[in-house]
């Protein structure tokens, strides 16, 4: 999952970024409002973490613009303001949740999980697909009751595809969600991960749509 972190404090942004990366998120950090548009144009984000107290303009403006542009990306406000009014305003302007500084890393992760879960129409941490059960929180995967061992990249690709069941997902989309822009992506690494997933979970689960990408069909729609 790719997260955009908009936070002016360099050290705080760094800590949050590393913390989220440890939890297998891909994080981009911007420090000023001016940088926001460039990143939003370049990448697709699953969540935006937004600091309200940006020096070159209120974070609230970023949020309003985002919603005016009909962006559906969930936004979590990071605020040091303990005023109830600010939180209300933020939520009314289209934010999905907020965390108050000084926040706990695990709380931020849990809230990011919660809003993305909602965005994909899940209410539990468990994804069930036929015989396949995937726990997004504990990252345990079982097939017909047998626990499977996946690497973190494999797990993320599986979750990514399961969250978009019925949709065809391009390789670029998967790379976007998995790799930092600084990471070196070898040309066939996504294919390698898919290959391994097929080996572990069966050949029929992930279907290749020629020249477009991959998909996991909805249960029952398979022939």
């Amino acid at each position, binding site marked *: 999952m790719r997260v955009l972190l908009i936070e002016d*404090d*360099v*050290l*705080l942004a760094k*800590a949050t970024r590393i913390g989220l990366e*440890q939890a297998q998120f891909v994080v981009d950090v911007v420090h000023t409002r001016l940088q926001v548009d460039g990143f939003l144009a370049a990448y697709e984000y699953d969540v935006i973490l937004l600091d309200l107290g940006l020096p*070159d303009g209120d974070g609230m403006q970023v949020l309003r613009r985002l919603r005016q542009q009909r962006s559906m990306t969930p936004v979590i406000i990071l605020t040091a303001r303990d005023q109830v009014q600010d939180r209300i305003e933020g939520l009314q302007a289209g934010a999905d949740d907020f965390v108050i*500084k000084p926040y706990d*890393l695990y709380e931020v992760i849990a809230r990011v999980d919660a809003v993305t879960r909602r965005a994909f129409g899940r209410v539990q941490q468990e994804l069930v697909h036929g015989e396949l059960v995937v726990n997004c929180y504990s990252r345990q995967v079982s097939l017909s009751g047998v626990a499977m061992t996946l690497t973190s990249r494999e797990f993320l690709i599986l979750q990514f595809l399961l969250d978009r069941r019925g949709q065809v997902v391009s390789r670029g989309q998967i790379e976007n969600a998995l790799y930092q822009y600084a990471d070196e992506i070898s040309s066939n690494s996504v294919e390698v991960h898919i290959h391994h997933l097929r080996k572990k979970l069966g050949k029929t689960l992930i279907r290749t749509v020629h020249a477009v990408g991959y998909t996991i069909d909805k249960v029952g729609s398979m022939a």
Partner: protein
Amino acid sequence: MTPVRQVWGSLSGRLLIVLISATLAMWTASSVSIYLMIKHELQEIFDESLAETAHALLSIRLGQLNAQHSPYPEIAQGQHNERIIFQIWRQDGQLIYHSVGLGQQPVIAQPNQRPSKHPYGWIDLNGQRYRTLQVADQAGHYQIHIAEQDHIRQQIFHETGLHLISIAVLFMPILAGLIMILVRISLRPLVHVTEQIHAQSSDALQPIALTHVPTEVLPLVEALNHLLEQIRESFEREKRFTANAAHELRTPLAVIRLHTQVLQGARDAAEAQEAIGDIQTGVDRCSRLMEQLLVLSRVDPNHPTQRQALERCNLAEIAQRVITQYRFRLQQLQLVLHTELADAALLGNPDHLEIVIRNLLDNAIRYRGDSQHMWMQIQQDATHITFRMTDQGVGIPRDERSKVFDRFYRLSNAPSTGSGLGLSIVWQIIQQHQASIEIQDGEQGQGCSFCIRFPALSPTAYTA
């Protein structure tokens, strides 16, 4: 002693004492004068009626009278305690009539003497005091010597006096009560004001309503309102400041907290090392912020220690001291500080001036961008001393130059690492020194230049 002082110390007590004793004194004085006047008037009335009696007696055809044939046997045989007694004398000194009480001897005056202009007199007879009168008829053939008992008059005088005193005794308590009520009513606005002051709480100071406040108390209430307003403002300032300070402390605390969690989840030794370094930076920031907050409260113009007088100091010496402190850091960062420091004496607080120079140099280093040069300059002319700190760094956008002195203001064009207090501390110290500060473009239009103008010491102050 104490209760008396207590009563005298209270306004109503004082008013009561003064009003009641003044009323009492006035009443006594007027009673005495009324008594004396009434006594005088009554004396005259009695004297006139005595004279009328005498004339009435003289109008009797006295020629037919003689000692043997008294037409008024009841008078002739009158008793000793009769109210009025008299003798009638003929011109030749022959007594033709006398009351028993007066006898046959002349007592009041000699019978051959003509009545004087002041015919009234006093005699004591048989242990009684009498008012006497000597009257002659128009032809001068007869004289009448008449006397009236004085105790009748005295009795009436006493009754009048008693009456006056009884009025006083009866009405004094009523009057005192009225005065007390009046005093209390008059002082009620003060009680109102007191109640309003009592109702104040430190977090919601309200001005005292000026309605129903008497003119005399108005200046007091207005002064009090002014004070309340000042206190309220300073409370507000404190509250805002505390809120801001708490807000600012949260960020470095969040940094420390997150980095400890990053440390726990560190994927390799390098990441752990970095997290530890960042925790240290976070702690440094916290302590720096605390330090700056303390400095700010110390240079607060409302702080009591600010009352101390400024002393004569040399700005160049202070600047040199700061540069010495920064020498190592400048070397480390390979920065070049160009200096041109003219000796400049001014009246100031050397510790605070050092903070100003240190904060400005610190900012120049912090926001140096890619440049390696900065300039510090002190110049003096006849009226002013100018201190200038110039850099070629990231600069401050023009529209933000007036805001950077606000507490916790952050620049939009540079990621913040400072406390957001440095320049507001500078501002406060500049105010304290009656100096002015201006931000101009930096060297070759890049970066910025802080220019402070202090008033120069006047020649008289040099000799002092």
